């Protein structure tokens, strides 16, 4: 019974995903896009959590962990790239 409700929650997650995607496309600056990408990864972490509950498979928790790690490294790398490019 709860599986169906969690399906609804997973569908609701499409809303922040769409908002993040619109921000990613519209910009207007490159840091805006980086922030949007970071937020989309946070949504993906939440989606992995909900999917772990729906399938009763805790393996998706590792997916969430790796996604959080990749997102942090990517954001920091983008920030360094931005600063180097700006100083030139």
């Amino acid at each position: 019974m709860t599986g169906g409700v969690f399906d609804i929650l997973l569908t609701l997650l499409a809303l922040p995903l769409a908002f993040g995607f619109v921000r990613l496309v519209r910009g207007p600056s490159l840091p805006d896009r980086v922030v949007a990408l970071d937020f989309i990864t946070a949504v993906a972490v939440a989606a992995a959590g909900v999917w772990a509950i729906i399938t009763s498979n805790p393996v998706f928790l590792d997916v969430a962990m790796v996604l959080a790690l990749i997102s942090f490294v990517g954001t920091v790398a983008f920030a360094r790239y931005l600063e180097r490019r700006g100083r030139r």
Partner: protein
Amino acid sequence: MTALIIAALGIGLMVIAGIGLFRMPDLLTRMHASSKAGTLGAILVLAAVAIHFGDTAIVVRVVVVCVFLLITAPIASHVIARAAYRTGVPLSPETVIDELAETAEPPQGDDSVR
């Protein structure tokens, strides 16, 4: 049931963060919405996972992910905000005060960096 309520709260926060990211006027206010509400939303959903399974190994893993998120989210937003300010991303016209402009070097860069 508890897991369901907490997951619903977390996803509600994610939706609020998404609306903030979509509607706020400039980069810093957008980050204000997405980094705090987004991180708390993800943490609440992960907490719901821990409650749903109730297994020690999973709870430990969830705590590790949550601590990692709590450590890295402020670092990532700080680094991005600093890079954006230094490369001269414009602030919202409604900005009241910009104390960094008086102390630090003026924002560098031009239109080509955006």
